[in-house]
């Protein structure tokens, strides 16, 4: 189970691009806006390409715990891919691997066909717990990545203003992190990540801890910023509706070891809303598939509990 370069057959043989195919089907009103999607596209020049990624941990007692197993995934430039799965399926770990903060046990992460060997500013991860630096101001946080890149001070100042305005925090440049609300911190993290001008933005359940209103607002903003900046986004969440609301494609993971269970192409027109009937309907279908995995994760948790 190592790298798997052989492209799998396309779901709808006559079409080169499944995305286009789904869109056409959707426009024609035929079938569903959601359809299973083959994991490897035939088209080359993927922005991010995961080839046979596996990761095992050494658990207590010397046994190996398989966290991720043979993940094959291609993400096109400018694509918004959402990864959903029950907690403990290794989806956060996958982002760490793409970010280069962790190394896979086997398999390869390719960015523009080049193997990832460590962290790089071409892909920036927004951590679930954000990891904003409390000793720096909002502006200082946004500036950090640019400073490490050696960008001149004048240019940094200009870009701080630009990116803070982009996330509607223009007036908070000199505030400290502890003075901000959860939604504002989230936006600082987004601005900090964008300021490094990465090609790929990796987001790890960024909105999980927010209240519904703030989350809705940030969904809109993220969608707008994605459209404006043309970044490739890989977004991890356990919230299926959120995934359908945001993603061009939703990748469903199995529970332990994490494997790609199924992919869904979301052809719904943008801008979307969380309350859209179509979003809810699509989410429903994915959820039916996910349910099985959630049950497995719950079972594992309860049996673990029983042992203790």
């Amino acid at each position: 189970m190592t790298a798997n370069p052989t492209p799998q057959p396309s779901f709808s043989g006559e079409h080169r691009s499944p995305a286009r195919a789904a869109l056409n089907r959707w426009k024609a009103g035929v079938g569903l806006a959601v359809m299973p999607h083959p994991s490897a596209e035939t088209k080359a020049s993927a922005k991010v390409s995961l080839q046979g990624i596996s990761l095992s941990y050494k658990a207590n007692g010397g046994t190996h715990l398989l966290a991720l197993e043979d993940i094959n995934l291609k993400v096109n430039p400018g694509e918004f891919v959402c990864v959903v799965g029950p907690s403990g399926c290794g989806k956060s770990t996958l982002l760490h691997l793409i970010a280069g903060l962790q190394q896979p046990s086997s398999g390869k992460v390719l960015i523009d066909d080049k193997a990832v060997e460590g962290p790089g500013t071409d892909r920036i991860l927004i951590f679930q717990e954000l990891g904003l630096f409390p000793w720096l101001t909002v502006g200082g946080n946004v500036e950090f990545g640019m400073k490490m890149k050696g960008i001149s001070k004048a240019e940094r100042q200009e870009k701080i203003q630009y990116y803070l305005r982009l996330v509607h925090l223009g007036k908070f440049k000199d505030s400290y992190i502890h003075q901000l609300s959860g939604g504002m911190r989230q936006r600082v993290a987004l601005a900090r990540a964008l300021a490094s001008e990465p090609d790929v933005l990796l987001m790890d359940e960024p909105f999980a801890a927010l209240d519904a209103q703030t989350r809705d607002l940030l969904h809109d903003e993220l969608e707008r910023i994605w459209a404006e900046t043309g970044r490739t986004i890989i977004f991890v969440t356990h919230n299926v509706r959120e995934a359908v609301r945001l993603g061009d494609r939703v990748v469903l993971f199995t529970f332990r070891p994490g494997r790609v269970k199924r992919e869904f192409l979301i052809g719904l027109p943008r801008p979307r809303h969380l309350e859209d009937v179509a979003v809810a309907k699509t989410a429903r279908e994915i959820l039916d598939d996910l349910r099985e995995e959630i049950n497995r994760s719950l079972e594992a948790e309860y049996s673990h509990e029983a042992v203790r």
Partner: protein
Amino acid sequence: MKRFARYLVFYSALIGIWFLLAKLKVWPPYVFPTPQGVLESLWAGFSDHSFWIAIGVSMKRMLLGYSLSVILGMVLGLGVASNKFLEQTVGGLLVSLQSLPSICWLPLAVLWFGLTEKAILFVVVMGSLLSVTIAMETGRQQMPKIYGMAGRNLGARGFPLFWYVLLPASLPYIVSGLKQGWAFAWRSLISGEMIFVSLGLGQMLMMGRDLNDMSLVIAVMILIVAIGYIVDGLVFRTIERRLQQKWGLTPAT
């Protein structure tokens, strides 16, 4: 205001009991001084400048010895924290050495440096060096890992990663260690000064003993407590509280 009232009641009662016990003359005044006697000693000490000189001399030693141990402790602590082997060997030794009261170093210090300023400095450094070192080490370990990851993720590595991320991230832990180091240094200094004629506060205590002047001894003790409290309770605690609040370690009030 309520807190102030509580303090007032408590300390009035304490001094009242002291006053009564002295008044009853259970023990002779050269063993158990009166509050007035202590107050007079304080007054006399400050008006003939002997207390000011003693405080000045002690503080100078303190600043010198403490700065020395902070610099040494930081280097040592970071060195130990940076290497697994050193952490397990040297780190363990440092922790066990910390149970040694610093005054135990005095006989060695006197043999090595004689009855000099250096001997006192040595005791002060040995008193606080270990706690500063250990604080640096634990600071690096307890610091949330997320900051290091975020820093690397944003392109920081090597010295910039240490200077701009790891060091500030562990600052709240380091300050706690610096505070503890200060307290240890202060205790060591007073003990060290009691050994020979050295002009400091410690020596004032011994002078009180030599002159059978218990009022002076108590007065100097009050001074030592007051200085310790001001530096520890006001300076360090304020810095610590601010850092913890800003770093999000305690909920902002």
